[in-house]
């Protein structure tokens, strides 16, 4: 094992998959010669050339549609978006086309492609560069949604996403790019299955089910709750939003009796509401107190630091919500 960054392992996973399978290619804005806005695709152009690391014009509908076409005959495009907000420009191609193609064709055609890029707030990019789109994508059948929190999980899951025969939306987070974590050596092969959650911290009093950057925030909140309040929180990292590993969540709730689902996409009509609803539908008897969800407040993301911090469901809001839940228990 070595310490490495989130960006580094994404770059490695792309290169390793391109070496393994000639059908894999990378396409997006500035991904080639420039190496990507966040340098995620750096050096790939030098190794694989312009036919497999393709710089596109700023035409998201066009190149997303092209990726569908190429994938429909067995190519495996990996599309990069600088900001996941821009995926909404290609909404027709994603929701009406990519997500539905396998179904509409009665299974005759499948679309093995990956849409990857960073989302999320915390860097004062404002309303059109800070949204979290996980709940939105999870709402539509036909696409898988993955959002790993650690370098180890990111590399293993990106490899699984590229090898998957379905469209996978792979969500990175701008606050995670320079975080460091343990990962096997660069050439050591491993994958992590899509749709399997991972318990990142054991606890006895309350389960926080979350993913992406909120996992790191939840782990910090758990430390504070333990040290200052004697509350032991179990942190379940979902890693995948669709398919959702509700079994692991409920196994944790069976131990703690309390559930808080947290995500950075909006709280309303979000994945947290889905998790809470499933808990009540499947195993209401496990809950000692009402299950709750915590997401971003339903406003557009403001630029100013105190305004942005106000609406983020990060450590401060998590601690406050957990304390409320423990009081009402």
């Amino acid at each position, binding site marked *: 094992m070595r310490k490495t960054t989130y960006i580094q392992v994404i770059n490695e996973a792309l290169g390793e998959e391109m070496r393994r399978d000639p059908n894999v290619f990378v396409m997006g804005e500035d991904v080639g010669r420039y190496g990507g806005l966040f340098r995620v695709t750096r050096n790939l152009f030098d190794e694989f050339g312009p036919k497999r690391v393709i710089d596109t*014009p700023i035409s998201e509908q066009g190149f997303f549609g092209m990726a569908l076409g190429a994938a429909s005959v067995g*190519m495996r495009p990996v599309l990069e978006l600088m900001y996941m907000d821009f995926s909404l420009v290609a909404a027709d191609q994603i929701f009406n086309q990519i997500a539905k193609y396998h179904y509409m064709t009665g299974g005759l055609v499948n679309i093995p492609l990956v849409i990857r890029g960073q989302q999320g707030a915390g860097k004062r990019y404002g309303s059109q560069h800070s949204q979290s789109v996980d709940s939105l994508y999870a709402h539509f059948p036909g696409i898988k949604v993955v959002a790993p929190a650690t370098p180890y999980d990111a590399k293993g899951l990106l490899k699984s996403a590229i090898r998957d025969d379905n469209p996978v939306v792979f969500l990175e987070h701008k606050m995670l790019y320079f975080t460091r974590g343990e990962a096997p050596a660069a050439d050591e092969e491993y994958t992590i299955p899509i749709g399997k959650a991972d318990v990142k911290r054991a606890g006895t009093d309350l389960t926080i089910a979350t993913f992406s950057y909120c996992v790191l925030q939840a782990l910090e909140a758990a430390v504070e709750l333990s040290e200052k309040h004697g509350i032991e929180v179990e942190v379940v990292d979902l890693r995948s939003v669709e398919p959702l590993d509700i079994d692991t969540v409920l196994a944790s709730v069976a131990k703690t009796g309390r559930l808080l689902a947290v995500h950075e996409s909006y709280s309303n009509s979000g994945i947290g509401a889905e998790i809470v609803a499933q808990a009540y539908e499947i195993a209401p008897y496990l809950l000692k107190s009402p299950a709750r969800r915590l997401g971003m407040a339903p406003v557009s993301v403001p630029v100013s630091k105190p305004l942005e911090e106000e609406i983020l469901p990060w450590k401060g809001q998590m601690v406050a919500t957990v304390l409320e839940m423990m009081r009402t228990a």
Partner: protein
Amino acid sequence: MQNVTAALADTPTRAGESSTASGSDGIISTTTDLLPSQVAAPFDVPALPVETLSEMYRQALLIRQVEEFLLQAAEQGQIGGAMHTAIGHEANAVGASAALRPDDYLTCTYRGHHHGLSRGMDVGRAIAEVLGRADGFAGGKGGSMHFVSPQHGMMGSNGIVGAQVPHAAGLALASQLRDEGRVAITFFGDGALFQGVMHETFNIASKWKLPLIFYCENNRYSEMTPTWRTSSVGEFYLFARAYGMESVQIDGNDAEVVHAAVTLAAQRARAGEGPTFIEGITYRLAGHMAGDLETYRSAEEIEEQRSHDPVLVLRNRLLERGASEADIAAIDAGVEKAVAEAIAFAEASPWPDPTEAYTDVYRN
């Protein structure tokens, strides 16, 4: 004010009024009110062998009869949803398919039955798909707007205007990356030209020299609105020139002309010379979809266009080239029998099991 009034006036721009040059190479300045036969292709159209013409005629007639059956079935309530027939568009499909290799790729709009059938899709299973039966190509999940058969290179018709066009560019990209020499052709209507994704794809395909043919079936109507009411541009093949692409305007109701244009475009594509834009002037002899009230055009206009019915054009061409009435009658009888059998097959096909609704969401 006068200019604004003129711009909004309820009359199309007439041929000759356009500010762009016209006439010198068979290209006219506006497509409004044209008969397809008034468009002269700016290239030589070689005479095809009688066997090829016969096969194109057989396909065109078969498509016509299938579409007439489907239109009737839709009007009788046997088919739900939106069902768009290609009555009047047949030559665009049969001419193009005859000019392409069986392994070339095709995508098209929801007006796509003719393209699927011209590629050789089984007629009975195609009708079964439109009827929503278990033997349909997609088991009844796709229906009229989602014809697909990868084994025939038919990679999909599409319910969203213009969306299929980048798909074909992606198929062309796959062929280019794999160095396969396969060409992709994509069919769209004149109404699609005002979707942004079209222009994104024109730009990329031209820049990357993709082996791609953009084929505009210009029937002069954007669904229920005459296209001249929606744009100041009268000559759509000129869009392609803005992107540095070869483009040509042809009689889309003459399968022999279509065959010649697509042959040239495919040669260019396979030689690495990039995409070609073909504007086939055609006419939709039936409504936009089953149930269309057709308040936007006169019976006289449709009648005038019938004189250049693409099935009739092929039939007359065969007679000109030495086929006998008896030869044609034999083809007619064969088509009638094939269509009757296909309809019987489709109508006898069972409904899908309801549990099939839950399959094919993900590939396992």
